[in-house]
């Protein structure tokens, strides 16, 4: 139960909003941080916390590609497939993943290292094609950079080509991708 582990944080999240339901996404993130994905049990618990029905939580959790409903590998490759990236070749990127890692969207490598998801626009259209790996962005992808990213991730768990993370308000490590 999230409540047992994160009571204080939950209270703090709930206190932020005049309308309880607004805490839904922060709570989904909390659950995802805990288990790496959002389980049915967590959705039910969150529904209980917010006086929603489980389908109402499920609705939101399935809308955003940032919420994983299944466990993901150590590195979650999220390749943008929205219009700009599609025009700039996101299909090709997905093809690289397939040939180099043997997985398609929604699949995880057998060693549990990589999961591929095709996601919606991540607001880096100007530097398409792009993908997000965990919380980091990798933009203007080419086959070379892509190979290097994979190799670095396997080796060091990180890659210096990353730009971001941009998702959080904390100061990002400086290196604004171009």
């Amino acid at each position, binding site marked *: 139960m999230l409540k047992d582990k994160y009571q204080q944080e939950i209270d703090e999240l709930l206190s932020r909003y005049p309308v309880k339901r607004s805490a839904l996404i922060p709570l989904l993130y909390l659950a995802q941080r805990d288990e790496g994905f959002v389980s*049915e049990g967590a*959705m039910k618990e969150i*529904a*209980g916390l917010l*006086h*929603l*029905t*489980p*389908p*109402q939580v*499920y*609705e939101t959790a*399935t*809308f955003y590609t940032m919420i994983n409903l299944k466990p993901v590998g150590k590195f979650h490759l999220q390749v943008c497939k929205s219009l700009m990236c599609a025009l700039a070749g996101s299909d090709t990127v997905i093809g690289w993943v397939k040939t180099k890692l043997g997985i398609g969207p929604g699949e995880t490598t057998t060693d549990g290292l990589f999961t591929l998801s095709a996601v*919606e626009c991540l607001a880096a259209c100007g530097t398409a094609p792009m993908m997000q790996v965990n919380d980091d962005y990798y933009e203007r992808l080419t086959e070379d950079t892509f190979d290097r990213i994979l190799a670095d991730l396997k080796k060091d768990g990180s890659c210096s080509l990353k730009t971001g993370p941009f998702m959080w308000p904390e100061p990002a490590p400086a290196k604004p991708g171009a």
Partner: protein
Amino acid sequence: MANQTTETVRLMIDGISISVPKGTLVIEAARQAGVMIPHFCYHPKLKPDANCRMCLVEIERVRKLQTSCSTVATEGMAVRTATTVVNDAHKSVLEFILANHPLDCPVCDQGGRCDLQDFSHQYTATSRFAETKRIFQKEYFSPLIETQMNRCVQCLRCVRYCDEVMDVKALAPIGRGTMTEIKSFGNHPLDCEFCGGCVQICPVGAITSRLSMYEYRPWMLKRADTICTFCGDGCQITVQTKDQELIEVNSAHSGGRNNGDLCARGYFGFHAASHPDRVTHPLIRRNGTLVEATWEEALLFVAEQTNRIKQAHGPQAFGGLISGRCTNEELYLFQKFMRLTIGTNNLDSSARYGHVNGVQAMRRVQGTHRWTVTFEDIVQADVLLLVGTNITEANPITGLKVKEAVKKQEATLLTIEALQPAVGTISNITNLSKQHLCVAPSQFGAAVLGLLKAVIEGDHVDPGIRQRASDYVSALSHAVRQIAWEDLAVSTGISSDSFAQMAASVVRGRRVVVLAGQILLRSQGGYGMCLNLLDLLLLSGKLTSPGCGFAPLAEENNDQGAVEMGAVAELLPGALDLTDQDSRDRMARAWKEELPLVPGGTLIEMVDRASAGIIKSLFVVGENPVGSLPSQIRAKEALSKLDLLVCQELFLTETAALAHVVLPAASAMEKAGTFTNTEGHAQAVRPAIDPVGDSRPDWEILSAFSVFLGAPLEYGEAKEILKEIRSVIPGYGSLGPSPIAPTADPSAIDRYVTEGYRHDVAIRYTLPPRAVRQEGTVQLGLVQSLFHSGKFSTHSKGLLQIEPSAFLQMNPVDAARFALGSGDRVRLSNNRGQFITTVKVLERVPEGLAWLPDHFAQEALRLFDCVIDPDTKVPSFRTATVSVLKAT
């Protein structure tokens, strides 16, 4: 608030000038002008969502096309719905939808009544989309509802209906964009109220009923508009049949008092009538067993025995019981048969189980036997007080009116219920309460007294009534002073502040409706509580104000009719007093015959008299006292002693099994007549199929008895009886679209406040006894389930799929205390006996209480104490204290 002076605006639609109330949507204004604008996501019941873009129109001086379902009509607006631009827009929207639509009309149950099919024909829209279509994995959705998401046009009407109207929120759009799919939760099958609303409101064949899957094409079906028999709300249903086969039930939007909404019983319960266990031939007991006989033989047998018993013991050796499920015509004829043909007032109906408490209270205080309000007044109320209603499960459609008042009209909802606010698979009215007092049913009386005390001591008494009836006011003031806040707090767990707050809300209201439900009406002291709630309205000056009133909810579809037809011992047709000489004379003139003088016995009195050997013969029409009364009343023993027990029944019930003669009765699906709903609105019942087997409508059987007894009450058809009813009760059952509620009778109120209130004030204004609950026990309560209505619905295959058996509902804390979880077997026992059932843990059940749905509870009835109301003779057996033990 509705009903203020309505301003209007004038606009042009395709050159037609029309004036509509301010705030009307363009699409509705067009409908009124006779122009149908195509649409998917719009529905008059729902808030505009404007997501499908099908309803685009051109509006003069507005640059882009507008969605007419979300644009409000304004003065001088000029709308065009049939220009080339508009047509092209409609065509493109259709093309987008058809890009993904599977076009599987040949195997789709919606075919022939599908909006997408119709519009496609109208626009001859085709798709240039050559890629593969979107395909969803087909998943099991639920036992009664089928989804085929490839057909979905993503209008979200289903999701919005389930949320906005039902407040159930069981459906959700899953995913995004084209891949949005309507689901419930993960791969779990749907678990909800099963109201069928999503099936009805889906414009295409994406959500359909499994009960009628692949069985029909709309044009093959015959339709009959009639009234549901599963509760007092009186919903209009359209029964669709293929020959003698019941295929489907639905309800037209804007049809009936339910405005097209139904509950699970109405939508999925219709198969009860066609169950193979129906009694289809007359049965006579010969050598101890019931054997088939002809009508002639059966009627002759009844006539001979009746004559013999009458000669030997006189008319008082007879009694009669009728179900509140019968039509007005049957109820009327039944009491006429008992009173004239037999010559006794020993007669009663299922209204005795609780409805009589509410009716007698209204008669005494305000001189009406009906509500002074209607469903419309509930929707337009600004304050609603619900006491002991369990409204979602007992009277679901009245519940929707309450939801509408709160959710759309922002009414203040106050509730006194044995219910905890909690989100569950079915809606919970207390989730919408502004203020909720969670009180055990045995203490509803105390809570009502707390409210009265707060009104009086908070100086909220209406100056008018204070002046007009100072004695009454001071008597009540004196009475509430005798009750200490501390005692109230101990009884109810509610503080004086909370009572004061609720009292203030009631008093502030301008349109206040008080609803009392089965749990209150069937409780011990139910009559007194109704009177006290009427006192509350009187003291706060609301009783006679427009839009205000007291509304006790009827349980059976025609309990109200039973009272109005005089099918209870103490009342004549028109709910006139049997003891009133004028009323007796009037009836005698109409019937051209004198009425029996001896006062009649009510339900329990008749059982007692049968047991004492005074009553020798009982005519039972659709009632089942042996199955419904707790065993300590010993109905079975009493009825076994009878010389003649005649039952008119659909099924061989516990009572019918004891009968000497069983006559196959036609169900409501097979006969014509009228039902009067909880509001007092009479509505037409029409046959959808022919009587099953040799069965006949109850009125025909009664009429045949009278012929064989040589005192014919003959009618050619049910309409002739209605004509007679109208001559006795002038204007009865106008059959219009909505009822005209009576107003409280000022002279009756005067009588009540001067003298009428006096004789039982002391008793009514005393706190009900407090049971000390022992460790290891719970208060067991019999409740109505949303998925059943008495025994009858347990013959419905649809409802049995949702709820096949009995279970005990209890709170998680109690469950933990007894180490029980959902699905565990549990033994309930007290000094009367024991009962084993299965547990279901639900947060909405308050701690210390446990609920048992009453339709499967017959075995458990032996645990219940039965108390008879001294005034109204209503037997109450709704609560019992039981020990709880896990069974293995």
